[in-house]
């Protein structure tokens, strides 16, 4: 009797699993820019994070962000905007970074990337990342005005000044040395 009761409980327990279907893979996709400023013709780093908060692994995970950075406005310097991961285990996460280079300046709307994955029971899930929103791509000149090193300009400035200033000083010393003033010895 006890044995059958135990079996009955075990069957009920398994039945609970099948009934609610809460133990599934669930991927949270995060997209964030890591560079503080987006400047034209300068490298811009983006980071994508895929976090599996479910209890089962997710299979055939793909991340596609090619549509938000068209090649006529952006160069891809490093990394791929379309990646494929075979499996993300439960509780694990993946971070993926891409370096791009904007070609033009102006306002830019960062849209979301698309993530697709399959859960255990071959269900296709289509997910969308968060959107960082609207940002501004600065002109090279505006960025240089604040962040570029300025000492080179000072060096060239000094080089421009030196010929006339120092040259005249040296000539002055030369002609001065040619006519030394000799002080007569004064008797005390």
């Amino acid at each position, binding site marked *: 009797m006890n044995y059958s009761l135990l079996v009955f409980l075990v069957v009920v327990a398994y039945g609970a699993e099948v009934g609610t279907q809460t133990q599934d893979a669930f991927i949270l996709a995060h997209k964030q820019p890591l560079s503080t400023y987006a400047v034209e013709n300068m490298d811009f780093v983006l980071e994508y994070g895929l976090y599996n908060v479910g209890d089962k692994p997710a299979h055939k995970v793909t991340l596609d962000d090619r549509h938000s950075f068209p090649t006529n406005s952006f160069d891809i310097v490093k990394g791929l905007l379309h990646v494929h991961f075979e499996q993300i285990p439960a509780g694990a996460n993946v971070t993926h970074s891409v370096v791009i280079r904007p070609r033009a300046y102006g306002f830019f709307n960062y849209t979301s990337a698309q993530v697709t994955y399959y859960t255990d029971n071959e269900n296709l899930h289509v997910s969308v990342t968060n959107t960082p929103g609207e940002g501004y791509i600065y002109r090279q000149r505006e960025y240089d005005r604040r962040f570029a090193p300025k000492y080179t300009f000072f060096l060239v400035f000094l080089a421009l000044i030196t010929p006339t200033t120092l040259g*005249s000083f040296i000539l*002055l010393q030369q002609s001065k040395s040619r*006519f030394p003033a000799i002080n007569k010895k004064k008797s005390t």
Partner: protein
Amino acid sequence: MGKLTKEEEVLLSSYSASSSTKGTLFFYANALVISLAPIYLFYGVHQMEIADSWVVWALSSISTAYLLALACKNQKRLLKHQIVMKRGPAVDREINGKYASDKKMTTKEKEERALFRKNEVADTESTYLSIFYTNTLFLTIMLASAFFLLANVAPIFNLLISTSGSAALVVFLSTAKN
């Protein structure tokens, strides 16, 4: 009074404050270079756009160059007198040493030559000294005003006021009647 003889004219001209063509050339060349250097510096440090600012650049360079040349001339006039006083004995010694063996020359001629040489030396030395003095004064005042006093003013106004203001100040200082 009568008309001045040729000798007297030559003597007067050698004493005058107006410098030789070589001297004035020095002054103008120096003024041009020193007026263009701050413009390059502002272009680099503040990343000024050429298309927007060339008017201000032209204005600043012309006014600064003119004022600096004026200041140099005034300074030279002031310094020449001082230098003549200082170099007098040394030049006399040089002339005497040079023509000591020559018995044909009278003392008066030697004196004249000494005077002429004194003038020449004082001329060149005062040119150099005035260029050096005006340059350093202008540059220190300009740098101090551009990067400390007027650091937060827009680059266009900063450039105009720093360069023209410093040049005007240098001219004012050079007109002192010592």
